[in-house]
């Protein structure tokens, strides 16, 4: 809160917590586009995001975007979303005169055209450097957002508004107000001391000087004397400098750990729950591969990684390795964390080729999943659509971006779908034939690739054929235009993360 609202955030006003909007339900992309489809949203910002191509049921996404008053697209590329209103023949057959959405396209830099940090799934934040200037009028995302913010703040200052406080009091400590630098933003998420931060055990000992960068989240205080934009990243830019820019690939332990390469959140810890590598007495399960161990002489945990627990917690205190669970141990069943469960279960996809669930016919699909009104009617049956459709990427492509890259377009130039040999025989389809693949929600046309790799599956006494549908084609870029694969996919997600059911739905296929 101090990082956002600075001096305006005080103990007396509860650090401005009341200023923050509160969620009344999850706002995942399916929920947002459902609301948009209902006409309950005025505007939408698509920042580095191509929802028309990426989200399920393209017809619904397009209809939803057409109900907006405005759409802002911040992207290095011209995306299908940015031209959802334009007619591209069979690939996007819309009537522009009937779409009133005002679209603003703000060209941004791509990752190679800016300094900054990238974080990967190993939790490593790695600084990277600009390799080239951005073309044309493209600006960095921070510069674009700064422009919007400064304009909004000016309007609130001049004209007031229903609730100007959070906008007027937002901290904006940037040297160039219109262009916050990546270094400034990184220092901000690391956090700094607003006053001297002292050791709770010894108040005469100053851990971080007022005005200086914090060494890590352990130095954060709840009395307003520290500010931090993102506690898990704290420690990435301490007083010593930008640890994300470190490039020391030495592996002192010989176990494949490079603690001085960039920075891993949290606390530069490379292995989460590393206490689990030791037995209850604090001895490594495998002495040849010691990650950490309890040192009884020094009374602390030591090793090649940062211990994932209080470093002085004696094993006799029985602090478990899974510190985020009150019981300290791992869980086989997520009793209070999952929408369904706790026991492992099998549900059929909402569109199933079996028409039943072989385990329990009364409950076929996940009852905890959220299906919006209207989408249920858009689910097909195996009678009409007998084959399983599944979508994926090709190794030659990266999502929808590489439509704009000639090299990738040469490697895989045209939309295709894959089917097994048996289905091909049944349908009299040969490799190279043009086929139409349809689901309850629409159809695409593509070249058939008949392959031995797709086998017939047998389940519940039925033969199940699969139609493989690579995503990538669309109608913007230099690759051959094609249909958006998500024309076919159903608008429903899993019950916990709301990840759409891109991988299993029902289609039919015929030679054109």
């Amino acid at each position: 809160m101090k990082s956002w609202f600075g001096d305006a955030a005080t103990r007396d006003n509860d650090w401005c917590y009341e200023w923050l909007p509160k969620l009344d339900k999850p706002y995942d992309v399916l929920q947002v586009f459902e609301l948009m489809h209902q006409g309950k949203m005025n505007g939408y910002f698509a920042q580095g995001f191509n929802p028309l191509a990426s989200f399920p049921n393209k017809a619904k996404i397009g209809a939803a975007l057409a109900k907006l008053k405005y759409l802002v697209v911040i992207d290095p590329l011209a995306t299908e979303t940015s031209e959802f209103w334009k007619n591209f023949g069979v690939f996007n057959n819309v009537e522009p005169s009937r779409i009133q959405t005002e679209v603003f396209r703000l060209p941004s830099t791509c990752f190679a055209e800016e300094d900054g940090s990238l974080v990967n799934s190993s939790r490593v934040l790695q600084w990277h450097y600009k390799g080239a200037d951005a073309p044309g009028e493209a600006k960095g995302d921070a510069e674009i957002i700064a422009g919007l913010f400064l304009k909004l703040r000016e309007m609130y200052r001049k004209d007031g508004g229903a609730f100007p406080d959070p906008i007027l009091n937002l901290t904006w400590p940037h040297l160039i107000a219109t262009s916050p630098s990546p270094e400034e933003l990184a220092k901000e998420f690391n956090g700094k001391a607003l006053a001297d931060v002292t050791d709770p055990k010894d108040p005469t000992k100053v851990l971080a000087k007022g005005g200086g960068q914090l060494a890590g989240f352990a130095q954060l205080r709840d009395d307003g004397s520290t500010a931090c934009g993102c506690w898990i990243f704290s420690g990435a830019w301490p007083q010593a400098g930008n640890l994300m820019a470190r490039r020391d690939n030495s592996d002192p332990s010989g176990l494949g750990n490079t603690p001085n390469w960039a920075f891993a959140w949290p606390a530069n810890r490379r292995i989460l729950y590393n206490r689990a590598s030791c037995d209850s007495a604090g001895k490594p399960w495998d002495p040849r591969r010691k990650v950490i161990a309890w040192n009884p002489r020094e009374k602390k945990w030591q090793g090649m990684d940062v211990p994932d627990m209080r470093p002085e917690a004696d094993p006799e205190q029985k602090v478990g390795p899974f510190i985020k669970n009150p019981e300290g141990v791992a869980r086989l069943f997520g009793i209070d964390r999952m929408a369904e469960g706790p026991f492992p279960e099998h549900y059929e996809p909402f569109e199933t080729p079996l028409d039943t669930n072989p385990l329990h016919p009364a409950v076929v699909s996940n009852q905890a999943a959220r299906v919006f009104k209207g989408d249920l009617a858009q689910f097909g049956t195996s009678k009409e659509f007998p084959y399983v459709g599944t979508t994926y990427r090709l190794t030659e492509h990266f999502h929808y971006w590489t439509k704009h890259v000639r090299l990738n377009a040469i490697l895989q130039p045209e939309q295709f779908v894959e089917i097994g040999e048996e289905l091909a025989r049944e349908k009299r389809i040969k490799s190279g034939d043009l086929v139409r693949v349809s689901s309850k929600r629409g159809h695409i046309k593509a070249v058939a690739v008949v392959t031995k790799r797709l086998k017939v599956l047998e389940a519940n006494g039925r033969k199940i054929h699969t139609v493989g549908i690579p995503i990538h084609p669309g109608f913007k870029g230099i690759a051959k235009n094609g249909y958006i694969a998500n024309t076919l996919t159903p608008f429903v997600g899993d019950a916990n993360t709301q990840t759409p059911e891109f991988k299993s739905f029902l289609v039919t296929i015929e030679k054109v």
Partner: protein
Amino acid sequence: MALQSLDIQRRSASTTQPPGVRQTPKVAKLIDVSKCIGCKACQTACMEWNDLRDDIGATTGVYDNPRDLSENSWTVMRYAEVELEKGKLEWLIRKDGCMHCADPGCLKACPAPGATSSTVTASSISMRRTASVAATA
């Protein structure tokens, strides 16, 4: 085949100098296609290295694209599905190219540890896996 007995100049997926570097009068490029993952990185690298851009073609029902070697495509990958025994499908992926580069971009781009450039001549190679090793001098 034991790599240390060869004078390997370079190898893929590795930044370290391979063992046995001496004078390198003759160069053979060896590709263990049984290790190939079919990513076409070599094909892309060949186009970039030699500044070639073929036409954006059409899909004809296979993964191979462009369909054949040409003045603008010096490397193409070929994909064959073979099931000699039922249930034992092999996806045989072969790198086809002119093999004339002394300093090949395709080798640098290969992420799988299966391509080497060595000083042995093609004729001296006892091909352990004839079907899966392509070599030229």
